[in-house]
């Protein structure tokens, strides 16, 4: 077991060194993007919208934007890092080693979650320059970050396994992740939507992550909090099983 821990620590350390080495690509852009969201949607437009669930619009969108940063950065980190390792063939360093597949997966997921958390913390710090926030439920906040980031790290890993060129890891964020995020209740409460849009919104997994985090920070949610955690849990288990199966079969990795 200690061998596995050392191997796991090696992957995590390598991932964190990578994140910090290219900080101008990994940490700064999301911070700038989110600052613009706060200025435009929170300050300029938000002041004319009024309150939502009893909070100012700025306070209401902060948890959504933080969660959006966490999941997009977790996804982006693992998909670019693992695909980069495949493309540069240095994934073979791990494949020829005695490491079991679950250690490889856990190492990359931990690295991706770490980037998500660092970016989330940066964005939250920036948000505090625009509004006051008090965390209503710390444990819910912590676990929603952990599970939300894990779900999208796993999804990014699966994407990287199947990707054959760099375009393939850009397609999913552009055509799937971004639309789902924008329609996942980041900027509005889905209670405002009429049918069938309200029901359609409920099949979007990002809605549950955003609302779990919003419940943790503000204490309000559009969906039952237990349902949100069950949805995230199911995705973690399902995507982990898929990722491990792909690694075990060597899809995209072993001939």
């Amino acid at each position, binding site marked *: 077991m200690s*061998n596995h821990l050392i191997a796991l620590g090696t992957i995590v350390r390598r991932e964190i060194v990578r994140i910090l080495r290219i900080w101008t690509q990994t940490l700064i852009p999301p911070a700038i993007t989110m600052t613009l969201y706060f200025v435009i949607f929170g300050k300029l437009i938000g002041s004319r919208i009024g309150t939502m669930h009893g909070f100012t619009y700025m306070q209401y969108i902060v948890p959504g934007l933080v969660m959006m940063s966490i999941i997009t950065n977790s996804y982006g980190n693992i998909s670019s890092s693992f695909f980069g390792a495949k493309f540069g063939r*240095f994934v073979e*360093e791990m494949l020829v080693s005695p490491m079991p597949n679950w250690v490889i997966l856990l190492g990359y997921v931990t690295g991706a979650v770490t980037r998500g958390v660092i970016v989330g913390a940066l964005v939250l710090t920036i948000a505090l320059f625009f509004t006051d926030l008090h965390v209503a439920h710390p444990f819910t906040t912590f676990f929603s970050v952990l599970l939300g980031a894990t779900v999208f790290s796993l999804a990014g890993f699966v994407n990287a396994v199947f990707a054959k060129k760099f375009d393939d890891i850009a397609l999913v964020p552009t055509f799937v992740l971004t639309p789902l995020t924008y329609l996942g209740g980041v900027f509005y409460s889905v209670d405002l939507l009429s049918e069938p849009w309200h029901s359609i919104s409920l099949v979007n997994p990002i809605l549950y992550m955003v609302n779990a985090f919003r419940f943790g920070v503000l204490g309000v949610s559009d969906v039952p909090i237990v349902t949100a955690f069950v949805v995230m849990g199911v995705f973690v288990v399902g995507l982990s099983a898929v990722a491990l199966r792909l690694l075990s079969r060597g899809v995209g990795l072993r001939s």
Partner: protein
Amino acid sequence: MTTPALHVKDLRKTYGNGVEALKGVSLTVEPGDFFALLGPNGAGKSTLIGILSSLVNATSGDAEVFGVSIHKQRSEAMRLIGLVPQEINFNQFEKPFDICVNQAGFYGIGRAEASARAEKYLRELRLWDKAHEQARTLSGGMKRRLMIARAMMNEPKLLILDEPTAGVDIEIRRSMWQFVSGINAAGTTVILTTHYLEEAEQLCRNIAIIDQGRIVKNTTMKSLLSTLDVETFVLDVNRSGGELPALPGVTLRVIDDHTLEAEMSRAHDLNSLFAALSAHGITVTSMRNKANRLEELFVRLVEHGRENAA
């Protein structure tokens, strides 16, 4: 009876596109051996090495490394193997020291021990002064040596070198072979594939030749070379033109004014050649074996195998 370093049993591989890369390869490599695995391009060498290092999934068959099955006990088997692949496969933006330490980490070796080993092998391979520079700044020969250092991080019992000297200049090649010969002498079993057949002839004690997915020869280097019945010598001579002597069983060719080539049966003695040359006023100042004997045999065996297959 000692457990073989490598025992390959009827290994087969058919790729998804239908190409049958291995058609039932069986092979045994004894512990401590320096073993040559030779074959033309596309013969199946890299597929075989890929299966042994778990980068390629075998269609059927098995292989044991020191008695440990690479399929049933993959992790244990991988601990025993070090691989130097044909293509550069490290992160060019990382530093050689980090590449080595991380590789050790993947094998469960702690950072203190890994750092000590990284320094040891980077020094031995004359890379220590580049240890903390980005790997992409290394020359081609340095990158090859870095892959050897990396493969040594788990101090393997079986080291597999897949064309490690491709594109490397002669001086660096020699220093690489000095290092590999040293670790072989210290007990590590070495399997080598190379296109420089003179390297294989000088270094390896046993040899397998693979072609079209089949082993066409598997024997000792000595016995293989003894099957070659003709040798060619290059003679540096002083001569003032004129006829060359006619000797039964010897074919003499003029290369230039000061060089002759003599192709002769191994049974033929050299004294009669020198006597005949001397009688024609030709003085031999020095001589050497022209070619690579193994290269000659290699071409013959591969061609013979293909004729039989046809």
